[in-house]
Every structure is written in C-alpha cells, then in structure tokens.
C-alpha cells in the first residue's frame, strides 16, 4: 500500500484527514499530515523525512501539497524521489478521497488518478447541478 503524506499550510492536512475519516468511518492507515506553521518551518524537512520513513511500506509515498510555489510545496519538492516518492500540488478532498481509493495500484497510476480526481472535483455549481443534488 502506498503511503500518503499531506504537506500543507496550517492544519489543512490534518483537517483533510479528519474529513476523509468522517466519510470512510475509520482513519485510513499510512496517511499523515505535515502541518506547516510559523513555528514548525525550521525543521520541516527533517520531520518530512522521518514521516516518509514511517509511511513507506516499500510501495512508495504520494505527497500532496496545497499551493505550488509556497513553503509547504517547496519543502515537498525537496522530499521527492522520482519513482518512489512523487508529489502533487492543489490538494483538495476529492483528490485525497481518490488517492485513498487507488493506493494499491502503482505509484504512477495513483498520481494520475489523484490529479484527475482533484480536477474533476472543481465544479461551478449551476442551478442544474444544485437541483440534481438537492432533489428540488
């Protein structure tokens, strides 16, 4: 099983994990957050490496960050190892849910499924979509 680490600002990572836990009914295994705050910035890389070790079961780790160019994502970039530790920016709940679903596939396939899941989860809710989900 591929490990997943969310590297994001504030408590976004832990919050996303709690959302996924609420939906799935249990906290998924080998899923962790590296929450980046002003206090934790200095030793983030060290913490990230240690979390990667815990999460890697031999199948690799997928890193999910929030905004490309920001400090959490820059840290994530320094943790990447092509082929075994891959990263995506723009994390959202649809991306995380999809990543959790497909983590027994190959890391390459997981990256592609997570990216499309995240993209397809961003929708303008027009009246048609709104009526469909509320049954009005």
């Amino acid at each position, binding site marked *: 099983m591929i490990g997943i680490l969310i590297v994001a600002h504030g408590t976004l990572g832990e919050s996303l994990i709690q959302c996924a836990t609420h*939906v799935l009914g249990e906290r998924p295994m080998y899923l962790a957050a590296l929450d980046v705050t002003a206090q934790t910035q200095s030793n983030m890389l060290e913490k990230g490496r240690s979390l990667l070790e815990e999460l890697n079961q031999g199948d690799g780790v997928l890193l999910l960050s929030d905004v490309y160019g920001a400090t959490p994502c820059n840290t994530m970039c320094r943790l990447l190892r092509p082929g075994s530790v891959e990263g995506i920016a723009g994390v959202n709940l649809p991306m995380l849910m999809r990543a959790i679903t497909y983590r027994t596939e190959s890391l390459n396939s997981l990256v592609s499924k997570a990216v499309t899941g995240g993209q397809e989860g961003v929708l303008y809710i027009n009246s048609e979509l709104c009526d469909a989900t509320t049954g009005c």
Partner: protein
Amino acid sequence: MLQQDVEITNKLGLHARASAKLTQAAGQFQSAIWITRNQRRVNAKSIMGVMMLAAAKGSIIRLEADGTDENQAMETMLALFGDKFGEGE
C-alpha cells in the same frame, strides 16, 4: 448480467458516507458493478464517481452487476439501499 432500478429513500441521498459504504460493499465482489443516473454511468467501486452522481432522495438509479458473483453482489447492493445505508431515515 443483472440490472435493476432502485429508488434512493434515505433522507440525505447518496451523500459522502453512504457512497463510501456502497463502494466498500461493491469492492468485495469480483463482478463489475455500475450505477447509472440520468445517463451518467459510474463504477460502483469508485467513491468519487458514486458521490458525484449527486443522487438525492427520490432519485431512481440503475444498478448493474456482471460477473461470477453478480447475484450476491446485486443482493448486497439492494440490501444497502433498502436499509437506507444504516442511517435510519
């Protein structure tokens, strides 16, 4: 291949937790399982696919199961809908 139409009767519709229960149940079977609503057909084993059907209470969806354990798969799926996903309302 089996197929059957079913109405969603739980108050919250096919929302996130219900979708998770449904995909977890579907994932136990070898058979391919599909759900169709308004011409949109998704893999019943994919949580985002099921959730984004956005099927509210009162919607009619079509269940399809195709494979060696299709009878048991269809029975399990229908039981989940019939039980309102264990939500009581």
